[in-house]
């Protein structure tokens, strides 16, 4: 039961979303930009979760991307938005290449805890680093695009919106292709039964590491976007609650549909904005209740609304490999 990819349709959707930004009011534009950036990093979590490993420490790569870009931007005056995204992605990816193989061999719950610990190590180091501004962090200048600088706030906002929607959109298309690929299927197999995978001659660690790097790249790019939007970087990027929020979006979306990640991310931003508007200090409350509701009524995440119960799956379940019953003497 393979669905057609409809590549031109997906590209068309991305283009439409980008152009639509022209008519959106400013507050929606900023909201959508943040939502797109968060969706990107949450998408990475979903990609990795398909191997049965949930990362609770994506803040590590998010911050690595952000700080990397911020330092380079301030040192070399590099302000081009696309370049910054590429650098962010590269920072995340390089770090992911180093860490991935080291932790790929740990199973579900320990993997999650390790990613959390590593992100907090980074946080701890950042907070105490006077060279990087400590817990205050530091500022960066406005991003530009292909040599053009944007002084009109409306234009600047739209530029950022367009870049984030396009990059995230293409990441989503890439993820969709990945999910349907041979490698994507093998990733699911690793989650189901990583022992059998090994017996079939496939390295489960390698599959996990590659997915991990992809997640790290997405996270680093997202860090660059967050930096460009806030024009400020601080250690909070690596804090566990930041990572937790991204996992929240991934859980909300479920692990079947890429589109659901965008919907979930947007829903989060809308809830946050409206709560802050009408009842200050309640957005976390609303979110918490919302999460409970989803757990109770939509265990497969938002995506299960349209993907259907084709397969019996629990939300981002980290399954232990089936015990090798034949191992008894």
């Amino acid at each position: 039961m393979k669905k057609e990819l409809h590549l031109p349709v997906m590209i068309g959707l991305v283009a439409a979303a980008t152009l639509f930004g022209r008519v959106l009011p400013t507050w929606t534009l900023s909201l959508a930009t943040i939502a797109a950036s968060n969706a990107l990093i949450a998408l990475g979590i979903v990609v990795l979760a398909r191997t049965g490993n949930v990362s609770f420490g994506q803040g590590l790569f998010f911050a690595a991307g952000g700080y990397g870009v911020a330092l380079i931007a301030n040192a070399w005056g590099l302000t081009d938005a696309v370049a910054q995204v590429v650098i962010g992605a590269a920072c995340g990816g390089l770090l992911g290449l180093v860490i991935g193989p080291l932790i790929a061999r740990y199973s579900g719950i320990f993997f999650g805890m390790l990613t959390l610990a590593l992100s907090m190590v980074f946080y701890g180091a950042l907070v105490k680093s006077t060279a990087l501004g400590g817990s205050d962090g530091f500022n960066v200048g406005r991003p530009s695009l292909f040599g053009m600088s944007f002084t009109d706030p409306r234009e600047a906002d739209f530029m950022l919106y367009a870049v984030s929607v396009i990059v995230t959109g293409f990441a989503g298309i890439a993820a969709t292709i990945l999910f349907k690929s041979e490698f994507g299927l093998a990733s699911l197999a690793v989650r189901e039964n990583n022992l059998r995978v090994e017996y079939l001659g496939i390295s489960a660690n390698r599959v996990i590491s590659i997915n991990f790097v992809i997640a790290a790249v997405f996270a680093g790019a997202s860090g660059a976007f967050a930096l460009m939007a806030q024009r400020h970087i601080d250690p909070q990027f690596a804090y566990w609650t930041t990572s937790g929020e991204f996992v929240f979006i991934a859980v909300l979306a479920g692990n079947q549909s890429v589109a659901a990640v965008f919907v979930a991310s947007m829903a989060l931003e809308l809830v946050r904005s409206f709560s802050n508007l009408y009842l200050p200090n309640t957005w976390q409350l609303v979110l918490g209740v919302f999460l409970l509701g989803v757990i109770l009524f939509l265990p497969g995440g938002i995506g299960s609304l349209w993907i259907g119960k084709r397969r019996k799956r629990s939300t981002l379940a980290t399954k232990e490999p089936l015990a090798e019953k034949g191992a008894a003497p």
Partner: protein
Amino acid sequence: MNFFLTIVLDGLIQASWLFIVALGLTLVFGVLKILNIAHGSFYALGAYIAATAVTMVAARGLPPAVGFVAMLLSVALIASAVGLLLERGLLKMFYGRDEVVLLLVTYAVFLILEDVTKLIWGVNPIYATQPYELFGNLEFAGLYYVGYDLVLIPISAAIGFAIWFGLNRTVIGKIVLAVIHNEEMSVSMGVRVNRVYAIAFAFGVLLAALAGALSAPKISMQPGLSSDVIILSFAIVVIGGLGSVEGAAVGALLVGLARAASVHLMPQAELFMIYLIMAAVLMFRPEGLFKRETARRI
């Protein structure tokens, strides 16, 4: 030598409140197999309630000692009630589902309590320092120590001993241990596991809140307290071994000493040191320093 003693004393002071928090977290995990992300929220709740109690007592002109007792009592009562309510009213609905589900539920509770605390007590820092002067000061090795801080050490040890005694030497305690080690077996032996769950969770919440109350006189209560505490206590519990009481003690000591040493020797490492240890334990001895004994399955 003085320097060394200073670090040890500082470490013990730190470890004492860390132990109480970690104990609650590890107990809940051991019995219910839940990693309670809202654990830090109960610490914060305890601290805030304590602050309110102290302030109310002080407003009536009563001596700080009364405030101290009042805060402990009020926290104990409220926290136990909240814990029981939460377990019976909410958590129970999700037993039997995937373990990740309960994690998400406690995360939701954490989010909700964050805002509830803000709504009740506001976002500005609150102080309740009156009890801090209760035990005077002590001069030792050229440094001044506040009596309150030092008193916390034996208090914490007493609580630890009480829990240990309760678990190992009383019938109820042994039942709880049985559930920790082998729930299936306990159920088939007729143990009312639901009751054990409720008691254990309420206890865990109580311990967190108590730690918060005891810390209240020396910290400032503000948003962000709970998220700092949960991640710290989680690190300790992982280092010591999830579900292990001895592990919580050893973990707290280790973290307390590491922190004290860092502060004096290498301040930049103070924060990340703890998580580095946590990562190292996860990589080389994932079950923690004190593996919760698992009965041999036949």
